């Protein structure tokens, strides 16, 4: 049972606020390494989390577009390794700043939770 990947769900449920924020953070983190297309973002999160986190397309693309609309991401069209037309996203200055903020907040929060859980 534990082997099933966790799924990061879409954005319409009211309780999804935390997940939504988490997904945004993960997307920003994925793109902090340089520009990438949506598929690469999903794959990177998937692999880096050792196949635990799996990002659904239904959540990923709305999140990318929302972040772009908020000015945290920039996008451009380019040609992929296998010669296909693909949309590449990259962090803007505002995106970098947001990622730094979120990383700090995350480490504070997870550290606090860890201290509680292992107390």
């Amino acid at each position: 049972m534990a082997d099933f990947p966790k799924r990061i769900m879409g954005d319409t449920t009211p309780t999804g606020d935390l997940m939504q924020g988490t997904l945004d953070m993960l997307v920003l983190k994925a793109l902090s390494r340089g520009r990438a297309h949506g598929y690469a973002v999903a794959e990177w999160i998937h692999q880096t989390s050792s196949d635990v986190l799996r990002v659904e397309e239904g959540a990923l693309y709305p999140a990318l577009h929302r972040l772009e609309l908020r000015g945290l991401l920039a996008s451009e069209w380019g040609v992929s390794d296998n010669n296909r037309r693909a949309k590449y996203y990259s962090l803007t200055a505002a995106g970098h700043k947001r990622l730094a903020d979120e990383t700090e907040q995350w480490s504070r929060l997870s550290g606090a939770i860890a201290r509680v859980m292992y107390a």
Partner: protein
Amino acid sequence: MREALHALRLRVKALLHRRRLDRDLEDELAFHLAMRADSQAEARAPFGNPTSLKERCRDIWTFVSLETFWQDLRYGARMLRKTPAFTIAALLTLALGIGANTAVFSVMNAVLVKSLPYPELDRLVILHERLPRSPLNVSWPDFVDWREQNHVFRQIAAYAPDESILSGYGDPQPVNGTLVSARMFPLLGVEPAMGRLFTDADDRPDATPTVVLGYSFWRNQLHGDSQILGRAISLDKYPFVVIGVLPPNFRFVIDKAAVFYPIGLNSATSRYQDRRDHPGIEALGRLKPGVSLSQAAADLNTIMARLAIAYPQTNKDETATVDPLYRSLLGNIRPMFFQLAAAAALVLLLACVNVANLMLTRAIAREPEFRVRASLGAGRLRMIRQLLTESVLLSLLGGAAGVLLGNWAIHGLVRLAPPSIPNLADTRLDSVVLWFALGASLVTGIAFGLAPSIRAGLAKVNLGAAESGRLVTSGRAGGHLRSALLIAELAVAVVVVIAAGLLFRSLARTLGVDSGFDARGLLALDLTLSGPQVNPQYDTRFFTQALEQIRRVPGVESADAVMCPPMGGIGAGSCWTSPYAPEDRPAPPENQRPWTLINMVTPGYFRTMKTPLLQGRSFTNLDGPQSAQVAIVNQALALRMWPSGQAVGQRIRTFFGSREVVGVIGGVRQFGPRSQQQPELFLPAAQAPVNFMTVVVRTHGDPASLAGAVTAAIRTVDKEQPVLHVMPITGYFNRILGRERFSMALYGVFAALSILLAAVGVYGVSSYSTGQMRRGIGIRIALGARPFEILRQVIGRNALLIAAGLCAGTVTALACTRWLASQLFGITAHDPLTFTLVVAALALVALAACWLPARRTTRIDPATALRYE
């Protein structure tokens, strides 16, 4: 903030490049799918619905609610185009309702809001003197004392209307002049558009006569002459130097005041200096901050008490009153307009109900459409929004048509405008009115759109219940809503029509009153003699000669003159009053005597008017200045003076000396059919000449046709004297009853609209319900039911609803009509005849509207009806 601006910029860009947005989304997802396919990720998880994902991404980039609205709007417009009969019926109904309200609102805006355009209006008051039993005009010396001694007014100013004749610009023409004291314009807070206004130096008896012009007088009569300042115009043949022009939006407290002179020019005359027998002025004041009405009245009455001691002959028992200007000028007009607005709102309510009914019927026809949408996942709110968008679109279109209709109606109202309603002629369709119409349309649209929306919600609940034919709701819930609407509609119609009926009966009663003379065939005109040659001898000679000339005109039976015509006439001429006392017994001191009207007439006046002579004789040509001083009393005065005895031969004392009563005439209601008969004393014009009289001409046939010939006849005596207000004397009734006629006309229109809308509503409900019963009736006919039984079944239920509506309306009307009571004459607000007739008439109309569609059912061919579904 910056984030929001950034997002807005990107969204607008996406909106402008909509096709590119679509293509990019398509490409992005296609790329993703291709990558997935390459990496055999397919096995791990399904991708989901790519179209839905694309749409969700797309929604991020677009103005979703706006686009949905636009989509709904276009869809709604298409639906309206597809059903022209429905659309036209709904639009017409709405246009009538909104048009009526727009017209009434714009009139109210002109009369109640724009007629007194003064800053801090609530601080402006009008001041009067008062004897224990009657209000009085203010005398000039009293006013001067108030002005100098009060502690409560920031400013106090006087005015008095004074008609004069302008010459030098074509034919001599009458001008509505007003005498004002120098502080009047500052008090009202007005600045000149050109030149300057009066100063204290202009407002003195020895000042050069000056005049300030109203804007429209300057523009129309003086052709907007920009060189007019400093030049003189001739008024009553005296030169007045023009010093200023008032701004276009300025309105004086009395309508039509065209030119203004300083009242101080007259203030030294003996009549102005007399505290008892004076021409009468009106006084306005602006209260100091923090001073209340009662404080102001108390302060003035302190002064009046001092004056009563100083001048017991003239001021004993006199007090002063202070009233808000607004209430004094508009106080009794306001309730009338609020009632009219209420009636108009009821008409709009009827229109709403009708359109709601139409929408309901249409919603049923559109049920399959909504079922399909619901099953495709459209939310209930989404469908209600669609319906509301459609109804608001409809009501906005109806509102636009209503504004056009209202604008047209305003022209009619202005033409009807009685002079007793201030500023009515200035009714305009301005921005305030347009905002009102927009608001009314929106509210209307939401109101009637809600009815089918409620149903749309219900329809969803019953989705599974009926897959073919009719939904369950159309039978039950819709039916109840429909019945409620029908009852409400009839109730509203009853209220409006009863209100109109009461006013109509009241006006008919008023016109049926014996005014004490025969108005048919009488032509009236006003003559006010002016110029240096005018003196009492000239007055008598002029009127005698003019009447002789008029009598020679073919078609004229007789012609006479009176100073104060019945109902006060049209012009500035007013009735005079005097205390009176009999000579034959001791009388109280003068200031405690009762008062009588005083009137001057030429010898044949009573015969010309066909006023019955009850005792004694009429005046004759022998009652001249040198002969015995005589008088005629009316019945009311005779009864008060000599309740039991013979009036003829007695003597009566007034301001006009001691006179012998030679005759008694029947009652003339001097101030119109609704006034009481007042004591009135008539003097021969030759013994008390005046320079203003109303000539009455009894004619054969149509009096209006002789207007030209009679005017020409007067011109032969002195062509310089202007002939004014030539009209059949019935015009006086219009003037005095103008307000009643005006409101009657509006109520009449509202009543007609209500009956029409109610009939259409009943017809609609009835045709719908008979349509519903078609199949059942077919079966019954097939089983041998007779036409009468069918008809009874079809009409029966609706007849019950109609009866309920009429009852509800009658009860509401019983509760509401007391608001009209003050406008009614000769009937009570619960006049049984009016109530009975109105209810009976509406019952007939409703039953007819119900019967028309029902009649068709008796001819239903059972075979067709059963195959129908």
